[in-house]
């Protein structure tokens, strides 16, 4: 069941640091990201409804 190529790609993929993982869960940072991502998504949505 081994998929040698994909396993090797996964094994060499960048691993997030502890700091990055904390940032992904930090409520203050994530609230800011929530607003930023929604803004990006609204931009895409506006293109459809122009």
């Amino acid at each position: 069941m081994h998929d040698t190529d994909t396993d090797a790609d996964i094994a060499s993929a960048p691993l997030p640091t502890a700091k990055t993982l904390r940032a992904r869960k930090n409520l203050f940072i994530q609230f800011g990201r929530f607003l930023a991502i929604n803004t990006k998504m609204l931009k895409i949505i506006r293109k459809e409804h122009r």
Partner: protein
Amino acid sequence: MARVVVLGGGIAGHTAALHLTRMLKRSDEVVVVTPNSNWNWIPSNIWVGVGKMKTDQVTFKLGPIYKRKGIEFHQALATAIHPEGDVSHARPFVDVSYTDSTRAGEHGELEYDYLVNATGPKLNFGATPGLGPDGHSNSVCTSGHAVGAAAALQESIEKMKKGEHQVLVVGMGHGTCTCEGAAFEYAFNVEHEVRQAGVRDLADIVYLTNEYELGDFGVGGLTFTQQGFQTTSKLWTESLFRERGIRAITGAHVTGVEEGVVHYEKLDGSISSLFFDFAMLLPPFRGVDLKAFDADGADISDELFAPNGFMKVDADYTAKPFEEWRAEDWPSTYQVPRFPNIFAVGIAFAPPHQISRPRKSPNGTVIAPSPPRTGMPSGIMGKLAATNIAEMIRNGATAQVRTASMADMGAACVASAGSGLRLGSAASMTMYPVVPDLVRYPGTGRSLKDTFGEIGLAGHWIKLALHYMFIYKAKARPGWHLIPE
């Protein structure tokens, strides 16, 4: 007075029907034909499939909504279209077979002036022997399937709590499946649940996919900028697999599923088997079993439908190699060329070709993700059909129809990677356009400004907000139409 019949009550059909009630005169009629009595917010089936939500949190009865909105509702399965009418019908009509308990099996004929085919997919479990809830694997395609998947997953978790090792396989049940994003979401939600249950060390989670490489998602992968560099969804996705310890088998076509074992062929032609304790494998889609007949009763299904059962619209269906694919091949109004009063939207329209490069194994097996056209694109197409039908009713031959090609349409996707207001996470992505256009965007085919990806708790909040917002919209609560598709 015009009569518009909408076949299908999913995202595309329901969106079209609700907008039609807003855009047409009171004297016009809007009719919905769908075999299901419930509407289902399918993206949240992922959470039903891990036991985090109940069926009634992702579904609601369509009947009361349609009664309130003045929509004529037929709980029935459309079986044939007669776009020219016949000897006994001057107008075009649709044959239907009722599915509600009071009229089960009864035949009906519904005349129309305009028809919206939003019948969605037929879940083609039969394409792979042993696939699906009636076979040896689970599915999350319907809320009922998801309930079964949650129960099976819980059994595996209980076994792990007793110290038993379990192999959990999540992915695609055929080489031509679509919706890789949903399988991706389910794999990471399973991993999240197993971790929360404190038995992660006893679970071997394997993602089995027809994608050539991780991060393809059936759209040929994405390229976006991150911290001053261009990066790919492949690298980004592989990073998440590494972080969460999920293994992956790519470029696989599942040939059969037996009790506890899945057989598959890979793009290099090798044949392998994978033993499992729990499997959730999505089926391939095909068009629903709908036929078409001309005024004399001759079968014209081949003219209206592609061999995969999806309806042919204003696309360029000329067979050509990947290198010659163009953005212009994709449909823009979703009208059937010979019958411009018929629209096919959402999954029901036949795409001209895949978005990802199609590949074959040395044995000739096609292993090629089909193009995704669910969610946001489906809703946009549904609204487009409603807008154009209203315009055609108002202005007849001088009507100016609007367009919405997937090659000029963006999509916002949120792929859940675990639920919980504090512990959840999701991959948030946008892409523009969905179908790459190498003429407008040389190199990657998409706008680097409008294509991005990010992982974090914020994505989970967005997915949860979308869940409540779209159910509110689908229930046609006050101001529903202000919520974009």
